[in-house]
C-alpha cells in the first residue's frame, strides 16, 4: 500500500493520501460506497441508454430516409401514424423549383401470417425502389432492387423468429396476399414492436388499406444548392392543406411524441433519476459515516492549523476517488450488460458523449453527497482534541 501511496503523495499532496487512507481503512464501507456508485452508474446508463435507444428507434425510418423534406397530412405527430394524402401532392411537389425528386412513402399496419398459423402485426413500409427514398438500409442479404418485383418484401434479421421466417425466398402471407422474402436488414428496430416490412409502393398497396391514388407521405429530395427553407415555404404555399417538415424536424417531432406524450420516455427518465437519488443517498451515508469515524482526526487537523479548505479538500477527494472507482466499475458493468443483451433485447445506446457526461454526473453525485459531511466538519470544534 505504501508503494502505491508514495507516488500519490508526491503528485497530489498529503490530503489525497489521507483521503485514500480514510477510504481504504474500512474496506466494508468502501465496498458499500462503491456498490452505491456502481448501482447508480449502471442504472442511469441503462435507463438513459434505453431512452436514447428508444428515441433513435422511433425516428430511424425518418433519419435513414435520404429525404430532405417530408410532406404529410396536417397534425401528423409521428411517422407510424398518419392520414393519407392525395397522390396529386406528389406531382405538385415535383413542379416546385428546387425539388430534384419526390417519392411516395406509405407506412401502414398490416397482419403478417406466420407459417405456424399465428399472426403478427407488422408495419408495411411502401417505398419507391427506383429512387430509394424511405427504403431499407444496412441490408445484409439480398438486394433492394429485388423489391421492384411484385410481392417481394424485406425484413430485419431481429424479427425473423418473431415472424417465423427461416430463409431467403420463403413465401409468407400478409393481409391475405402472397409475399416472398428477398432480403434481410440488420438492426432496423421498430419502437411499436410491429416489425418494419419493406416493400415497393405497388406491393405495399396490396397489403394495406390505402387507395392507389393516396399516399401517407411524399418524400422530397432537393436539387444541389437548393434552399431548403425556401422550398419548404413554396411547398406549404402551393400544396394546400399539408404539413411540410424537414427531416430533422420530423425526426424530433416523432421522438417527442413517443418519448413524452406516451409517457414511455418519462418512465425511463424517472428510473434514471431514481438511480441518481439512490446513488446520492448511499454515497452520502457512507461518506458521512467515514467522516464521523475520522472526526477526531479532522479535529486534530483543525487544531494544528489546517484551513477549512484543506479539510474540506480531504472529504471532497474521498468523494471524487469513490466516484472515479465507482464510475470505472459501473461503466465496465454497463458494457458487460449491453454485450450480454446483444441484439436480442431492446436498443440501449451508450454513445461516447454519454459515457463522458456520466463521468461528470458521477463526480457531481459524489461531491454533492459529500456536502453533508462537509457541513458536519464545518461545525467541528477544534477544542475536541483536548477532550
Amino acid at each position: 500500500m505504501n508503494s502505491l501511496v508514495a507516488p500519490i503523495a508526491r503528485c497530489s499532496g498529503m490530503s489525497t493520501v489521507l483521503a485514500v487512507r480514510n477510504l481504504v481503512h474500512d474496506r466494508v464501507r468502501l465496498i458499500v460506497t462503491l456498490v452505491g456508485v456502481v448501482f447508480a452508474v449502471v442504472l442511469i446508463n441503462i435507463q438513459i441508454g434505453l431512452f436514447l435507444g428508444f428515441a433513435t428507434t422511433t425516428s430511424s425510418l425518418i433519419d435513414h430516409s435520404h429525404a430532405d423534406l417530408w410532406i404529410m397530412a396536417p397534425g401528423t405527430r409521428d411517422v407510424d401514424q398518419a392520414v393519407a394524402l392525395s397522390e396529386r401532392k406528389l406531382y405538385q411537389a415535383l413542379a416546385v423549383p428546387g425539388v430534384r425528386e419526390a417519392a411516395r412513402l406509405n407506412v401502414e399496419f398490416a397482419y403478417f401470417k406466420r407459417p405456424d398459423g399465428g399472426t403478427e402485426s407488422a408495419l408495411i413500409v411502401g417505398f419507391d425502389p427506383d429512387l430509394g427514398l424511405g427504403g431499407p438500409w444496412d441490408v445484409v442479404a439480398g438486394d433492394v432492387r429485388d423489391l421492384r418485383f411484385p410481392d417481394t418484401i424485406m425484413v430485419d434479421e431481429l424479427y425473423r423468429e418473431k415472424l417465423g421466417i427461416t430463409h431467403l425466398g420463403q413465401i409468407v402471407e400478409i393481409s391475405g396476399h402472397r409475399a416472398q422474402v428477398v432480403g434481410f436488414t440488420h438492426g432496423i428496430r421498430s419502437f411499436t414492436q410491429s416489425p418494419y416490412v419493406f416493400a415497393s409502393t405497388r406491393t405495399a398497396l396490396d397489403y394495406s388499406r390505402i387507395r392507389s391514388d393516396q399516399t401517407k407521405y411524399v418524400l422530397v429530395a432537393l436539387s444541389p444548392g437548393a434552399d431548403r427553407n425556401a422550398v419548404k415555404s413554396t411547398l406549404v404555399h402551393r400544396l394546400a392543406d399539408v404539413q411540410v417538415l424537414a427531416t430533422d424536424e420530423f425526426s424530433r417531432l416523432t421522438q417527442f411524441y413517443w418519448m413524452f406524450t406516451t409517457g414511455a420516455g418519462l418512465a425511463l427518465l424517472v428510473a434514471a433519476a431514481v438511480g441518481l437519488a439512490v446513488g446520492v443517498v448511499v454515497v452520502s451515508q457512507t461518506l458521512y459515516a467515514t467522516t464521523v469515524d475520522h472526526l477526531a482526526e479532522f479535529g486534530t487537523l483543525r487544531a494544528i492549523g489546517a484551513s477549512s479548505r484543506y479539510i474540506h479538500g480531504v472529504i471532497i477527494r474521498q468523494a471524487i476517488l469513490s466516484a472515479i472507482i465507482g464510475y470505472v466499475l459501473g461503466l465496465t458493468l454497463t458494457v458487460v450488460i449491453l454485450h450480454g443483451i446483444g441484439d436480442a433485447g431492446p436498443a440501449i445506446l451508450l454513445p461516447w458523449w454519454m459515457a463522458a457526461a456520466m463521468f461528470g454526473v458521477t463526480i457531481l453525485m459524489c461531491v454533492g453527497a459529500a456536502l453533508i459531511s462537509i457541513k458536519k466538519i464545518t461545525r467541528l470544534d477544534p477544542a475536541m482534541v483536548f477532550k
Partner: protein
Amino acid sequence: MILQGLRFVLPRRSDPAQLPAKPTVVLDDVSKHYSSGTGALAAVSGVSLEIRPGQLTLLMGPSGSGKTTLLSLMGGILRPTRGRIVVCGKDLAAMPEEERSGIRLAHVGFVFQSYNLFPTLTARQNVEIALDIKGIKGRARRMQADELLDQMELRDKADTYPADLSGGQKQRVAIARALTGTPSVILADEPTAALDSVNGRRIIKLFRGLTGSQERAVVVVSHDSRIVEFADRVIRIEDGRIAADGPPERATGEPAPLTAAIIRRPSLVESAWAP
C-alpha cells in the same frame, strides 16, 4: 537544519534576567465562561500572564481547574469570553476561527495527551501532513519529515503505523509533528500522562531541550510532579484562577535537584507567587 543540536541536550535553566523582553504569549485579564443549565460556568477567570521564549512553563492544578482551557486559549483554539490573548504580536481574541487557525499554523505546535496521530498514516506521513498544511510540498516535505524523525531518533520507524509504535514513540512522532515549521510556542497537554516513568522523563527532557536550543516557549499542562524539576516556571491553577506562579522550587518547596545550582535570581514574575 531544523532541530540541530536538539537531541536530548539539556540546556541550562533560563536566567530570567537574560530573557528576551518580548513575550511569545500574553494573556490579559482572560476569562472563559461556558453556559450550563444553571447559568454561566467560569472555566478561567481573570487570568493575566506572559509566556516568554526559552522558558518551559508548567501548568499544574487539580482536575477541572481550567489548565487545559487555559492551554486552548493560549493556542487560539478557544475564544475567550473576556480579555485579550496575544500570540506572537497577534491578538487572537477578536479573530474569526479561520484566522486563528492561520496563527496556530504559523506559530503554535500542539502535543496532545492521547497523541492524536492519524492511525491510517505512517509516522513519516503524520509529520508530512503537518508540513503539507504549512505549504511544504514534494521532496522538501519528505526530507524535513525525515529530519524531524531523525531528531526524535525515530528514523527507523518512519514507515511504521502508530498502532505498531510504543507510547513513547507515538509521543515523539507527535512532537516531531508539532515542531514542523519551527513554531514559536509548543503547547502540550498532559504529554506524559499515558507514558511510563522512563518514557515520561525522556519526553519531558525533550521538551526541556526544545526551549533552550530554539529559544522557543514551551507550555506543558501536567499532573506529573516529576516534571517540576525540568520547568523554569510553575503556574498553579485552581478554580480557573492563577493560585501561584513562580520558579519550581517555590512550587515544591525546595530547589529542583537538577537545576538548583544554576538558579541565580528570582523570577521576574515571583511577586505574583507571594501569598
